[in-house]
């Protein structure tokens, strides 16, 4: 469960102050499927970064499963992030020198999980995403849809409670996009909280709850 209380985030661009988030309060239950929509500069990415513990708000509180993330130090936020949050990016952000399998394994490796335990978890994920036969391919040998599936595998391998997807189908053709969306939805059906940031109204419309943002506010 996520609770945001009066979040404020300001950026200074030149001598201008931009309110990326302006008094945002929000409550998200476990297992929700939410689409965040709005024009560029409306603050959706900032909201996403703060929810993903990649960025901090200037003021306000962020409670993640009862933990006040605003009060934590950087190392603790990193641990919390790797335990609870999975990221899916528009441009996949796979490490090009690693194979599909190694990319999926990366978060577990960074958390120092023993090799044996890792192997099982990665096998499970690859199996679930139908990527077993692509496990030893490098990202540039994969199609866009396959790359995004690898990225989703990497996002869920640590069994997070929240999946944050920033334009997950933005770089994909409609067929692959549809596959990826279905995959994300099936993960949501299994209980993960899914939050998608998108420009695409049809994708946004599929979510059970829509948040429209404008000038740093939820409208």
């Amino acid at each position: 469960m996520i609770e945001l209380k009066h979040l404020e985030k300001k950026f200074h661009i030149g001598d201008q102050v931009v309110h990326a988030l302006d008094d945002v309060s929000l409550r998200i239950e476990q297992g929700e499927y939410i689409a965040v929509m709005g024009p560029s500069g409306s603050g959706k990415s900032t909201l996403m970064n703060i929810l993903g513990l990649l960025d901090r708000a200037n003021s306000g509180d962020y409670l993640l499963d009862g933990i006040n993330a605003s009060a934590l130090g950087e190392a603790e936020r990193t641990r919390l992030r790797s335990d609870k949050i999975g990221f899916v990016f528009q441009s996949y952000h796979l490490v090009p020198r690693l194979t599909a399998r190694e990319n999926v394994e990366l978060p577990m490796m960074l958390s120092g999980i023993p090799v044996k335990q890792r192997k099982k978890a990665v096998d499970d994920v690859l199996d679930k995403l139908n990527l077993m036969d692509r496990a030893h391919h490098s990202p540039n040998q994969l199609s866009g849809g396959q790359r995004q599936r690898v990225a989703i595998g990497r996002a869920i391998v640590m069994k997070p409670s929240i999946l944050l997807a920033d334009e997950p189908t933005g770089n994909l053709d409609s067929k692959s996009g549809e596959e990826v969306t279905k995959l994300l939805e099936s993960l949501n059906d299994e209980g993960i909280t899914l939050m998608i940031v998108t420009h695409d109204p049809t994708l946004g419309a599929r979510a059970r709850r829509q948040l429209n943002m404008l000038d740093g506010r939820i409208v």
Partner: protein
Amino acid sequence: MLWSDIVSFITQVLSRHRFRTIVLWVAIAIGVVAVNLLTALGEGAKSFVLEEFNVLGRNTLIILPGKKETTGGMPPLTGESPRPLTLEDAQFVSRLSGVKSVAPIVVGNLEASYAGKIREALTIGSSRDFFIIRQLSVAQGNILPELDLDKGEAVCVIGNQLQKELFGQQSSLGQRIRIGDTRFRVIGVLKKGGTSFGFDMDDVIIVPVANAQSLFNVDGLFRLFAEVRVYQQLDTVKRAIVDLLTERHEGEEDVTVISQDAMLSSVQEILDILTIAVAGIAAISMLVAGILIMNMMMITVSQRVKEIGLLKAMGATSSTVRTLFLCEAGLIAIVSSLSGLLLSHVITSIANLYFTDLQFYPPWWAQVGSIVLAVVFALLFSWLPAQRASTLSPVEALQGKQQKETT
């Protein structure tokens, strides 16, 4: 992150960026090779020089007439007239319990002639033991016979060069040559030995000491070599000799006894300083390699900004990122410096095959030092880039921007 994972992660990075890895590898290896080769050269030269000085063996004491002081101060007002060191002194010294053998020395230049050919040659009067102490051996014939020190015999051993000049292709053994105004029978020819310790041993005549004294008409000895039985007794024997000669010289200490080690240690000191200076110059090449590492790591960090952002988003802490970059530099430094060390051994081994006079071998401190220095420099110079990488903000790094985290 597990150490095994760190190593495999870095290995993947290094093998992926092959060009960069090779450039760093070469730079560090060159530094290590430079340090090892130059010190090997220094050490080789040192052992060559020390060997030259070492012909006497470290069990040998050199006794000089007169008290030689190096402490400075006012010279004595009365004229110095040291008592000569005599053959009798030599005989007394030879009877001391710790002394194995003595070789009294009388030297001078005399004309030697044979069949109308005249050569001026350094003439050394000594005993059979002189050959043993100086490690001289003959190519033909024999060394001087065993004689009482005060008994002469008109025989001589001549140097290789002198034999050629006086006799040409002819055999010299058994022939009589005139030295000064006495005729001596040649009983041996020295092996070609080259110069050592200032004496050109190819161009000398060695006669029994008693004959030399009468040739030069002197009582005193130029110096006296005494060989002790065991090295551990060197100082005791030295003291005993001084005491004995002081007593024999009416209570006045008018001889100087020096050991080989005392002479060597000053030479060694100079050569050591030279070697260290050379090593220091070589270490500068390591510094250059270090700066290259810093530049390369800086470029790496810029190139891999997105990856760093991703690693951070995936749960890598700042210290994990820093560790990854430091270990990357450390690993390459270890691998390159070890291969540089290997290369220096290959080069010195080849050099040793071709230059048999000089033996090159990098000293252990240079081997260890060059590796430690390479790794320390690598870590030191990659600290800044690693620090920069670790402070990148994940949000901006993911977008490819290189700004510092603002927290």
